[in-house]
């Protein structure tokens, strides 16, 4: 496998700089500081996307931010974004109620590979908000469950009160064909689950490293230790997929804000095969 192909200009939407209007139909508070918008377009047209892609969400008069899509790509009429209130724009977004209208540009970026990993065991490694960009891929792989071997999800959160998509995790854990390991950094005494790092969960996951493709969605700081744990399990860098993010602005590799070494993350990322990007992980000040 040579990694997935770069996006071609021909596959891009016709006018990338003009936002489409979407109405927020539902706001769901997920965990402290994190909320999910369920939206539909005002023009009635679907927004077709692939797992791992992101949109530029525009809160008029405030600003525009890149946010990964967290919904099920099988239903492109419903757009779902899960957002952490971290900066000025997302904190303003957190105040919006159902009925509000925002601007959406996208989808942008290279998606997670799906067809390329048919036949493999699948291991997801993620934590906190990182589950949101992986959720469309998990859903898609479960839609096509018979095309994959084992499916294992390793998820870590700070505590028992901020486990993102807890209902989904329960649902996935309840399947006979999926293993879910949830770890928390700390817990009240008497908690019956696993406490520790996600890497510890990776070490005990029942997988065959030689036939596994791993999908990592963690902060850049925590990606490296996750990759180290995967290497210990025999998963080589050419079978590890990671995400990277920088200051994405235009979404199509024109403005250069998200340039990272030789790549533009908005266009060549945010999904990368680790062996194609690993050298940049050790370069400081990029």
């Amino acid at each position, binding site marked *: 496998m040579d990694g997935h192909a770069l996006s071609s200009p021909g596959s891009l939407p016709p006018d990338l700089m003009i936002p489409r209007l979407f109405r927020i139909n539902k706001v769901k508070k997920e*965990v*402290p*500081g*994190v909320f999910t918008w369920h939206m539909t377009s005002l023009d009635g047209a679907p927004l077709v996307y692939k797992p791992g892609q992101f949109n530029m969400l525009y809160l008029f008069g405030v600003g525009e931010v890149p946010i990964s899509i967290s919904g099920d790509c099988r239903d492109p009429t419903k757009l779902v974004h899960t957002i*952490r*209130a*971290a900066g000025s724009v997302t904190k303003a977004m957190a105040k919006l109620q159902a009925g509000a209208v925002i601007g959406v540009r996208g989808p942008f970026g290279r998606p997670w590979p799906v067809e390329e990993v048919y036949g493999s065991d699948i291991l997801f490694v993620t*934590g*906190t*908000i990182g589950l949101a960009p992986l959720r469309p891929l998990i859903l898609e792989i479960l839609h096509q469950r018979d095309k994959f071997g084992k499916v294992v999800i390793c998820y870590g959160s*700070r505590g028992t009160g*901020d486990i993102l998509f807890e209902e989904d995790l329960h649902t996935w854990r309840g399947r006979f064909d999926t293993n879910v390991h949830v770890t928390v*950094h*700390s*817990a*009240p*005494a*008497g*908690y*019956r*689950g*696993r*406490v*520790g*790092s996600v*890497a*510890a969960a990776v070490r*005990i996951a029942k997988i065959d490293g030689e036939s596994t493709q791993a999908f990592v969605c963690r*902060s850049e*700081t*925590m990606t490296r*230790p996750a990759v180290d744990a995967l290497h210990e399990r025999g998963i080589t860098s050419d079978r590890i997929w990671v995400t990277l993010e920088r200051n994405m602005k235009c979404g199509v590799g024109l403005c250069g804000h998200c340039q990272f070494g030789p790549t533009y993350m908005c266009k060549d990322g945010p999904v990368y095969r680790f062996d194609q990007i690993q050298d940049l992980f050790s370069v400081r000040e990029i």
Partner: protein
Amino acid sequence: MKIEGLGPLVAEHPFFAGMDPAALEIVVGCCANVVFKPGAFLYRQGEPAEKFYLIRDGMVAIEIYVPGRPPIAMETIESGEIIGWSWLMPPYKWGNDARAADTVRAISIDGACLRGKMEKDRVLGYEIYKRFMPIMARRLSQSRLRIVELATEPSGE
């Protein structure tokens, strides 16, 4: 009926994988088979650290006592792992609590007994330290990384 000693159980635990049989025989002399019911303490903070445990089955929570608040579980140890190294170094007191999260089957190893044997047999001592050090280093590294994660990823509160 053939009654087997603890030797096979100790030998099959990953902590002692590949250990010289003669050295293993010395270790087995300090071992006992133990079971903890859910909620039972393997050890408690401040008490003399006299043993360590090879976990065969079940999960153990490492807890920190917090005055005026319920204890906090900081890490869990599972089947195939070991718990307890305070017996290796002065003042030989536990630095935290360890409590069975569910039914735990383990081999306990008498630390004072093993320390005595390690003093007499430095090769054995070196072998035991070689097996403990990577585990201690990995857990320290993981703890540091968790601090980094907590410091760099906003809590949302």
